[in-house]
């Protein structure tokens, strides 16, 4: 490594000082509003504290032991992982497909780009309510359409009998973000590579396999990991798409069906509906560890499959 002179060292030190000063505010905010509460949650998880406990005592890792023996927790983790994987597959495949379509030079390209992205801008809660009406058994748009087309004889209870499917449709609805990432990725591919490939007689699929996919691989890897993490954190959709009656703002009072009772909702239900503060925190910490392990494995595997110009 090139040795820096006195002036060089001073400049480096100044740069480092500036860097730390500028990120200090974020670090302080993160520490105060996220790190400290997270660590407090871990501390509480080592006690027997309920929501309004009069007396609290340390119980060590008893809550963790209980959670690891609880079949309901295992099922919630399993169903969350299933959702996360399926949602990731939708986000990546559909997002990539839409990006490839939008990338064609055609009339209305900007219009379609905006239209496909627009649903993503709608807050997730609003999306949930829209889908709730869409999937309603008695008055829902989907059932009315299918009934009028003669494809079904009676309305289907989508939320009651096909809960996972209804929640996954929110993934279809919100694929705009993924599409945008891939559009950005496609814009980094040098066009002359395609021209050269065309001259060499490569068809569309060959060009996609040999040029597009390798160049997009870092973006696909990024989207695989990020979509997975977001999928593991799904919370409000299962409550809104709950088949039971919801009155007013009491959305989170009644637990969703087992199939869509994902782990964050389970943690929330344990803490706020059942008052089991310490146990709920233990469940959430276990979830954090699982997500971390899966993310690390994921990152390691996709890194191997990722093309990098730097390496080549």
């Amino acid at each position: 490594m090139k040795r820096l002179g006195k002036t060089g060292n001073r400049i480096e030190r100044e740069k480092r000082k500036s860097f730390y000063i500028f990120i200090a505010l974020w670090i302080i905010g993160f520490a105060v509003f996220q790190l400290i509460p997270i660590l407090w949650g871990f501390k509480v998880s080592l006690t027997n504290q309920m929501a309004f406990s009069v007396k609290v005592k340390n119980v060590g890792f008893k809550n963790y032991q209980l959670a690891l023996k609880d079949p309901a927790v295992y099922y919630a983790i399993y169903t969350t992982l299933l959702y996360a994987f399926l949602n990731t597959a939708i986000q990546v495949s559909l997002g990539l497909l839409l990006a490839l379509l939008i990338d064609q030079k055609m009339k209305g390209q900007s219009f379609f780009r905006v239209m496909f992205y627009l649903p993503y801008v709608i807050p997730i809660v609003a999306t949930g309510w829209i889908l709730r009406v869409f999937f309603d058994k008695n008055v829902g748009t989907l059932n009315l359409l299918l009934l009028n087309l003669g494809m079904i004889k009676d309305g289907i209870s989508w939320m009651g009998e096909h809960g996972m499917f209804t929640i996954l449709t929110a993934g279809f609805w919100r694929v705009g973000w993924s599409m945008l990432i891939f559009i950005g990725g496609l814009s980094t591919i040098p066009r002359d590579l395609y021209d050269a490939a065309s001259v060499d007689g490569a068809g569309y699929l060959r060009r996609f396999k040999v040029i597009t996919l390798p160049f997009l691989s870092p973006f696909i890897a990024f989207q695989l990991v990020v979509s997975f993490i977001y999928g593991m954190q799904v919370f409000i959709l299962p409550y809104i798409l709950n088949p039971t009656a919801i009155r007013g703002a009491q959305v989170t009072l009644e637990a969703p069906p087992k199939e869509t009772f994902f782990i964050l909702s389970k943690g929330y239900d344990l803490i706020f509906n059942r008052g089991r503060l310490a146990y709920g925190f233990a469940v959430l910490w276990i979830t954090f560890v699982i997500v971390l392990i899966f993310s690390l494995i994921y990152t390691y595997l996709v890194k191997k499959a990722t093309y990098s110009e730097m390496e080549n």
Partner: protein
Amino acid sequence: MKKLLVLFLLIALTMSVWAGGDQEEAGPVSLRVMSPASDFTDAWVEAWNSANPNIQLVREDQDQTKWIADYIAGSSPDIINLGSGAEIPYFAKRGMLLDLTDYFEASDKLNGDIDEEGSGAYKFEDSWYGLPKDYNNVTAITYNKDIFDRAGLAYPSATEPMTYDEFYTLSAKLGAVDDSIIGTEVHGSWFLFIASDMAYMIGKTLHNADQTMMNNDPKVRDIWKYFLRLRKEGISSNLENPLSGWAGSAFQAGSIGMVQLGYWYGASCAGVEGYEDMYAWAPAPVMEKGGLRVTNSLGATGFIISSQTKHPDQAFKVFEWYMADEPGVERAETGWGIPPLKSLQPLLPVDNEFNKTRKAIAMEEVKYMKPPQTSWYVRNSVYAGNWTEAQRAYLNDEVTIDGAIDMFYKGMNEALALGKEEIGE
């Protein structure tokens, strides 16, 4: 120089975040009222604030999650809307409520005027902890006359209660009128309060003597099975045939034959054109014809003052005004519930037969009110959560009906044990 300035600003900002501790309050006292706007309107807040510059109110939406978080942080709202007075013992045992007994005794407006039969859920171990904003006989029946006509059934009596078996049979017949109609629907977690009444009427309790376990008596188990059968047999909504909306809205949409929602629901129905001809009332069912009558108000929605309030006297002033003055009068006149103060009860609307009947039934049923049989070791939401799990397992054929009761009991017994530990007993 610039960097030093930035560093200084960051330090100053951090210090201002940490600058805290109790600061002496100068000027008006500010009280936080946690309540939905429908129960503590912004107009009332404005009226109070204009008339009382030294006690300013700030309303925030009711949010159980926020209340728990605030309470743990030691900064609970001062005046809180409690969804169900049945939970008064739960909160009182945890020291979360301000004892208002002395305040009531010293109050010219409240002392001697409280309807103790209807407001009794807010009294625990001889101490008053709040009052209902109004109360209702929540198991009284509202029925749809048109659905009865289509089913070829006679209307129920407005004075003689039917039995729960008759109610069940009637609901099944009403639901058979049309695929889009269900016979009856139990609203939310109100199965718990209906079960409580049923148990009282057969001389049983829902828990054992010290409330640490659910009562495994076969007759009590039959009570829980009643609710499961309603769903399994399609008399109420289920996973295959869910409701659009909730029991009240679905009833007004003509999808339900009978609901047990109580007096207040009449005020909601008044928004439907022709309601007085479409709907009618029947008293809450009983277990045996001519037998013991028991009703409940689910403890009633009301207000309490937090034990963490730093301004108890001022908070009580607001509480007293809310119950006895302008807001209390307005609530009584709208007919959304029976006022907790006897002097306000004559203000209830009786402008048509519909309102006269519902008032007559309500005032009669007040005599039979008993506090809901919920344990102070757990909240109502715990019963609802465990019940929902067991009910879903039964509806999905994962367990038998007895298996579902066992599942419900297991969850409840564990929760009751944890609740006992929570109180430190």
